[in-house]
C-alpha cells in the first residue's frame, strides 16, 4: 500500500477549541436574557417517560392560571398528546417535536420563543422529552429546572442518574400514593437527592390527585 508521508510544512495544526455543548449553553443564556426582557419566568421540567411531567404541569397550570398568564412548550419526539392535555388545562401551548432527538435543546426553544407573544405572558413551562439522561447536558435558558422522578422508576432512579440533578433546583418525587404497592420508600429517594445536592428542594406529590402541588409552587417560588 502506498503510504503518503507529508513533508515538513505541509501539516497544519489547527486549534479549534470549540465546545459543542458550550454552544448550547450560550444559546440558553441568550434565551434567558430574551425572557428577562419580557419579564417572563421559565420553568423547565425533565424526567423519564411516564414519570408525570405533564400531570405535574397540568396541576400547576390549573392552580396558577388565575395569578399568571401562562404558556407551555411541550417537547416530544412525535405526538401532540401532551400538548393537548396542557392546552385543556388552560394554557397556550406550543408543540416542539424533536423527531428522533432525545432532548430539547436551546436552539429549539429559541425558535419556539419567537413564536410566542411574550408580552402577554408571565410564566412559561417547558416540558422536556421524556428522558432523565440526555436533557441534563442541554440547559434551555429557563430560570428553574424541575426533575420529576416517580416511585414506579424504582428505588435506584436517583443513584443511577446523579448528573441529571446538576442544574435542578426542585425535585418532585411523584406517585407517592403507590409506595405501599411498589415497596419503594419516597423518604429514601429524598435522602439520596439531598445527599447528592443539599441545596435541592424536594417535594412529594401525587400529580393525579393534586397532592403536593401547593408545595411544588412554593418550592418554585411562584
Amino acid at each position, binding site marked *: 500500500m502506498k503510504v503518503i508521508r507529508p513533508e515538513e510544512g505541509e501539516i497544519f495544526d*489547527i486549534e*479549534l477549541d470549540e465546545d459543542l455543548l458550550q454552544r448550547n449553553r450560550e444559546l440558553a443564556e441568550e434565551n434567558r436574557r430574551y425572557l428577562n426582557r419580557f419579564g417572563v419566568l421559565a420553568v423547565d421540567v425533565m424526567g423519564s417517560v411516564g414519570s408525570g411531567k405533564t400531570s405535574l404541569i397540568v396541576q400547576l397550570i390549573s392552580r396558577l392560571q388565575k395569578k399568571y398568564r401562562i404558556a407551555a412548550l411541550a417537547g416530544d419526539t412525535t405526538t401532540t398528546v401532551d400538548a393537548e392535555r396542557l392546552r385543556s388545562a388552560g394554557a397556550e401551548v406550543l408543540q416542539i417535536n424533536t423527531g428522533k432527538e*432525545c*432532548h430539547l435543546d436551546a436552539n429549539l426553544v429559541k425558535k419556539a420563543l419567537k413564536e410566542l407573544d411574550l408580552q402577554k405572558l408571565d410564566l412559561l413551562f417547558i416540558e422536556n422529552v421524556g428522558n432523565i439522561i440526555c436533557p441534563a447536558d442541554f440547559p434551555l435558558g429557563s430560570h428553574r429546572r424541575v426533575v420529576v422522578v416517580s416511585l414506579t422508576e424504582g428505588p435506584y432512579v436517583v443513584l443511577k442518574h446523579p448528573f441529571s440533578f446538576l442544574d435542578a433546583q426542585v425535585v418532585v418525587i411523584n406517585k407517592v400514593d403507590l409506595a405501599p404497592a411498589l415497596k419503594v420508600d419516597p423518604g429514601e429517594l429524598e435522602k439520596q437527592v439531598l445527599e447528592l445536592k443539599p*441545596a435541592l428542594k424536594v417535594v412529594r406529590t401525587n400529580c393525579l390527585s393534586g397532592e403536593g402541588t401547593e408545595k411544588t409552587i412554593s418550592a418554585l417560588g411562584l
Partner: protein
Amino acid sequence: MHEFSVSQAIANLVLEESRKREAKRVLLVEVEIGELSLLNPEQVEFWLRLAFEHTPANEAELRLEVVKPEIVCERCGYRGGLSFKDDPVYHFLTPAFRCPRCDSPEIVIRKGRGCRVRKIEILTGEDGQAQAS
C-alpha cells in the same frame, strides 16, 4: 444517548474547517469529553468513524480524552476536583456535588461538562497553499 447528534456536530465542524483550508486529509482530531457530560467516549468514537467515512477524515487518528471535573467552592475558595463516593454495591462512582474541603453545596463547576474539539491536524496540497491559523 445523544452521542449521535454531538458526533455529527463534531464531524461537521472538522470537515468544514478542513474544506475551508483545502485540506487533502485530516490526520488527527482531538476531542475532550467532560466526565460530567452524559457522553460515552466509545460511542462518540463509533459515530465519528461512521461520519468520517468517504471524507478526507476517513483515516484520521481520533484522540478522545476524558477530562476530570474541576470545581470552585464559593464559600472556602477551594479549587480542584470533585469527590466521588465509591460504593461497591453500585459499581459506580457517585459524585457528591459539594466542596470536598468544607462540604459546602455552593460550588461552581468550571470544567468537566463540555465536549470540546480541541484541535485538528490537516495535510494540505503539495503546494501547501493553506495557511496556519
